[in-house]
């Protein structure tokens, strides 16, 4: 043992060991990635490290994020990572950092490559302490990404209200775009929003919260470091995330996080205390009443308070139901128009009224729910059907006229977009009417108005027309106005028949709907009549009882 007791006694030798360790750590952390050179570490967090690098082929400056998970041997995990990355890479939005490459480093760590945005993180702009203690990090290993920034330190230079709101409106639009493409961010926070030198915001790390912890959980050492299935970063996590239920999170969790970021951007503070232990912070998120922004920054008015607090509602159903709604309200406010968040008051009144006439109202609201559900479902199904048909058309087209490919594809895409837009405009008109007319309008009146609207509308394509008739038919069925329902369902059927022919699947679907309807209405003769028109009469709905 005489040998070992010596080596650390020599101060110079020991210092050399410490230096060597630092170099080795640094070298170990410098990943090698084929096709990229001059890697320079920019930042390091719980999920991974970000490097600036040069793409060899294009000499373009890029940012590369290398994730920590080392045990990447599992083929299933790797494929899943690639699938997610592919989805995120398909996002194209001026305010989303574009992703265009991914893979696994020579050391076996997954990485992805994105646009390098010259500028600063919103967190730095807000004055949060962005300078980590690099020296301590070298020796302490990887800290968990549990940052609890100080709530007391106000931003050195608060952004103007207008700038803040415009910035956040853009961020919301970007997030909304991602939502529409099936990507939920799950970890929105100032450090995931970069501001370029022109002041334009860019959202990054979409969906990473989903990929990284899942992947991490696969490696043995980190399974244990995770308490529950928490995703996201505590101070920005929504109550449902704080509860640790990953299945309870949806686009409205992103709306919540946007609310926290909005609060921070406007006031330089968090809406509730976020100092203290992990559990304490989670507890606050779930129960602490958020501050009013105007209480912190008096120049803010009640409307801004309403917008922010609507985002921060503990119950997801009390928040904006989408990032698009939030963006719209921010834009309305900026344009001096009335905002939707304030309609909360009348909704609240409506809810109160409903409680008073509970029994009467229940039937009507069930019907209202059915209208909504039916309309939305139909729109979705219809859009999907159209897309499938278009695709089939497209494929046929491909084979025959390779030269006109592109023009045809564009045309069909445009047609689809136009039809989707028409439907959406129409449904929006109909479905937002209750708010404008007041809570007392009976549902039947609204439907009658929608029907009248549909009669008047003459620029509709047969598809849109038929789909809307079906939606109305379903809605009338929902409130047991059978004669009206019949009229619309028949109209839908006739339109499809005329436009697409008897054998078309959409016509057949309309027939099936009619059969169902007549069975519900207890008109067996009619049901039988239409059942005979089904090509495949063995469908369960149509089968004789």
């Amino acid at each position, binding site marked *: 043992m005489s040998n*070992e*007791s010596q*080596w*650390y*006694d020599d*101060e110079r030798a*020991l*210092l050399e*060991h*410490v*230096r*060597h*360790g*630092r170099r*080795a750590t640094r070298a*170990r952390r410098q990943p*090698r990635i084929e096709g990229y050179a001059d890697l320079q570490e920019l930042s390091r967090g719980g999920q991974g490290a970000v490097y600036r690098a040069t793409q060899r082929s294009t000499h373009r400056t890029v940012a590369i994020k290398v994730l920590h998970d*080392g*045990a990447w*041997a599992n083929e299933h995990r790797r494929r899943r990572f690639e699938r997610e990355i592919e989805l995120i890479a398909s996002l194209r939005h001026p305010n989303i950092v574009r992703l265009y490459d991914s893979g696994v480093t*020579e*050391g*076996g760590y997954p990485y992805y490559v994105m646009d390098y945005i010259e500028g600063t993180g919103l967190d730095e702009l807000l004055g949060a302490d962005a300078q980590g*203690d690099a*020296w*301590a990090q*070298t*020796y*302490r*290993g990887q800290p968990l990404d549990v940052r609890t920034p100080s709530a007391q330190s106000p931003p050195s230079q608060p952004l103007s209200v207008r700038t803040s709101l415009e910035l956040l409106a853009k961020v919301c639009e970007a997030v909304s775009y991602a939502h529409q493409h099936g990507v939920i961010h799950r970890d929105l926070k100032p450090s995931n929003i970069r501001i370029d030198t022109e002041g334009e915001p860019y959202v990054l790390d979409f969906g990473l919260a989903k990929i990284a912890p899942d992947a991490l959980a696969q490696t*043995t*050492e*980190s*399974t*244990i*470091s995770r308490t529950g299935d928490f995703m996201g970063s505590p101070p920005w996590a929504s109550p449902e995330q704080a509860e640790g239920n990953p299945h309870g999170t949806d686009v409205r969790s992103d709306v919540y996080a946007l609310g926290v970021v909005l609060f921070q951007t406007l006031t330089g503070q968090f809406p509730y205390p976020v100092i203290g232990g992990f559990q304490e912070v989670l507890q606050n998120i779930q129960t602490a009443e958020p501050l009013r922004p105007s209480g912190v920054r008096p120049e803010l008015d009640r409307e801004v308070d309403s917008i922010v607090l609507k985002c921060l509602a503990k119950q997801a159903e009390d928040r904006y139901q989408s990032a698009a709604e939030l963006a719209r309200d921010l834009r309305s406010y900026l344009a001096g128009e009335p905002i939707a968040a304030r309609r909360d008051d009348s909704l609240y009144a409506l809810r109160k009224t409903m409680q008073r006439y509970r029994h009467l109202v229940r039937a009507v609201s069930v019907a209202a729910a059915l209208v909504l559900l039916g309309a939305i479902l139909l729109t979705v199904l219809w859009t999907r059907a159209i897309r499938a048909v278009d695709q089939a058309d497209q494929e046929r087209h491909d084979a025959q006229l390779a030269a006109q490919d592109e023009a045809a594809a564009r045309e069909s895409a445009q047609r689809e977009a136009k039809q989707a837009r028409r439907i959406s405009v129409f449904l929006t008109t109909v479905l937002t009417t209750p708010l404008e007319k007041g809570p007392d309008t009976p549902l039947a009146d609204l439907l009658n108005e929608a029907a009248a609207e549909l009669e008047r509308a003459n620029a509709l394509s047969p598809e849109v027309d038929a789909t809307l008739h079906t939606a109305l038919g379903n809605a009338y069925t929902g409130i047991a106005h059978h004669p009206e329902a019949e009229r619309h369902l028949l109209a839908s059927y006739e339109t499809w028949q005329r436009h697409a022919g008897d054998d078309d699947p959409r016509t057949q679907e309309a027939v099936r709907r009619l059969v169902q309807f007549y069975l519900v209405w207890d008109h067996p003769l009619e049901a039988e009549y239409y059942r005979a028109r089904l090509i495949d009469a063995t469908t369960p709905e149509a089968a004789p009882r």
Partner: protein
Amino acid sequence: MYSRSTHISLLERLGDSQDASAWREFHDRYAALIIGFARRRNLQPADCDDVAQNVLLTLSRKMPEFQYDPAKGKFRSYLKTIALHAIFRKQHERHGEVHLEYLQDATRAAAEDETIDEAWEAEWRQYHVRLGMRAVAAEFNDADRRAFQQYALDGRDASEVAEALSMSVDQVYQAKSRIMRRLKLLIEKQVEEEG
């Protein structure tokens, strides 16, 4: 002879199969050591990670029946043996059947490079320094650590460092000697505990 040191109780906790934090701690302590050793044995980075993972898994499997007895041999050499096996296995896996050139290469490498024992020894020391520095990083304040880093490690002038950190030159010297003293003590204790 040896008190139940953190090191030994960690091994025992690891043997306790489901003690998750023990596993994490164990990984924190030894993964870098094994990776460093494997790298010195000319394995690819990804393979080094694999080797570390395999070694730690092997250990956790064997721990339930592992009776710690310093008289029977040091944990250190036990770990080395397991690590070497994992490395050989990985090399074999990589090269499949051992080709003649590979054999020659390996022989030459073994002769020209440092010996296995030297490599292990170097990594082992590195491991102790790392562990010690981790404790130092937690124990000393920011100013002391920065002074130590800039003066003792980066070799900058003491007065320059003092000015940059708004300290006196004396404080810079003190920071260095206090950290060095503490580090030595920590390593001494670690080595002793290891048996």
